[in-house]
């Protein structure tokens, strides 16, 4: 499943970069985030609880930032496992930030998500809508945080 989003934020690129590179800041924007542990500069672990239809998923995920080109480009690889073994999620994400004007930037990201196990099969229909919903929620949170200051 490939998710591609593009949206603008009223903030300069540098500000966005500092925000998204910091797990402590970006973490809370992720819907359902329960816990975040920063392991090192480029690695962090999260526990996210989401409801996919009637399925309650508790995903423990390790994310590694594999490419950094501040303040324009970053790549991450994430591997997550559900506590109840409903499935695993692997995600390769690319984020690009483009400053459109002094205080307006465009963020585009594309996430190639591979889901295994029951989540992938039984939840296929719901997964797409849920993923979209979560992604929308994330963007909303991110914008709110970045634009509030």
């Amino acid at each position, binding site marked *: 499943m490939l998710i591609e989003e593009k949206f603008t934020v009223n903030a300069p690129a540098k500000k966005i970069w500092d925000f998204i590179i910091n797990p402590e800041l970006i973490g809370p924007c992720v819907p359902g985030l329960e816990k975040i542990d920063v392991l090192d500069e480029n690695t962090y672990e999260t526990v996210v609880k989401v409801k996919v*239809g*009637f399925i309650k998923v508790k995903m423990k995920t390790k994310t590694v930032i594999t490419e950094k080109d501040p303040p324009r480009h970053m790549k991450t690889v994430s591997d997550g496992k559900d506590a109840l073994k409903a499935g695993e999620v692997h995600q390769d994400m690319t984020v690009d930030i483009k400053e459109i004007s002094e205080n307006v930037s465009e963020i585009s990201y594309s996430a190639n998500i591979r889901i295994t196990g*029951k989540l992938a099969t*039984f939840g296929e*229909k719901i997964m*797409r*809508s*849920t993923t979209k919903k979560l992604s929308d929620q994330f963007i909303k949170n991110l914008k709110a945080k970045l634009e509030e200051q």
Partner: protein
Amino acid sequence: MRDFDYIAPKSVEETIKVLSEYKDEAKIIAGGQSLLNILKQDLMAPEILVDIKHLSELDYITYDEKEGMRIGATTTHHAVEVSPLVIEHYPILSEMEHTLAFPQTRNWGTIGGNLCIQDPTGDVAPPLIALRATVKIVGPNGERILPMEDFSTDYYETVLEEDEILAEVRIPPMAPRTGVAYSKFRIVEGDAPIVGAAVAFTLNEDGTCADARIATNGTAPIPLRIPDAEAVFKGKKITDELIQEAVEVAGEAMECIPDIVASDEYKKRVAKVYIKRMARKALSQIQ
């Protein structure tokens, strides 16, 4: 399937009590035609199943000239399908049930269970919405009545609290000069719908539209009532042009989700075709 405990309460009252006690550790089973599949996949792991399938106090179909019809939640699809009362007063419901899933599903599955699972492609809700049905929900604090279209909240989710059950579907008497139609699109017969549409019209004596109802399945995470499209008809004489206009309005309201069977654009397009066809069919029943 994971192990669970099982209890078969003897009444609705007892059911509510059990639910209040176990909260989200309990799950209600009626016919279980969808639930068991979910449990077999270990996608849900309740501590206890509360079986209401056998509750005869929820298994009934009655009709009253003033109040209309009441269908108990554990009434099977098959009972609705063949009920003389249903066939007489709301033939569309019998027709809908006749093509719902398989005979085996209809013989054991219940109308309430179907609504509570809230599969967004489900057949039952759209015609009920078109018929202005309401649902009775019973919980520890008594009952509440909701319009059918307000019952579902999301994919496989409803307004029911952990200690509530859906007890009854109520359908008001059909107004004179009313036509109702429902049909669905499938590639394989007997299969779940890809999309479906229900349309109801009530005409004034002068032939103008007194009321319209449009509801679809498979076009959003929940059964979708589309008031904006209904409004197109209000007070007007229903023509093919008007139907086309309403269909376009209806399309705007849909948020179809693509899946392995069809894209979102295609689903929307076919749902619009079905609204058009059902509108014509409903109209033809009155004229």
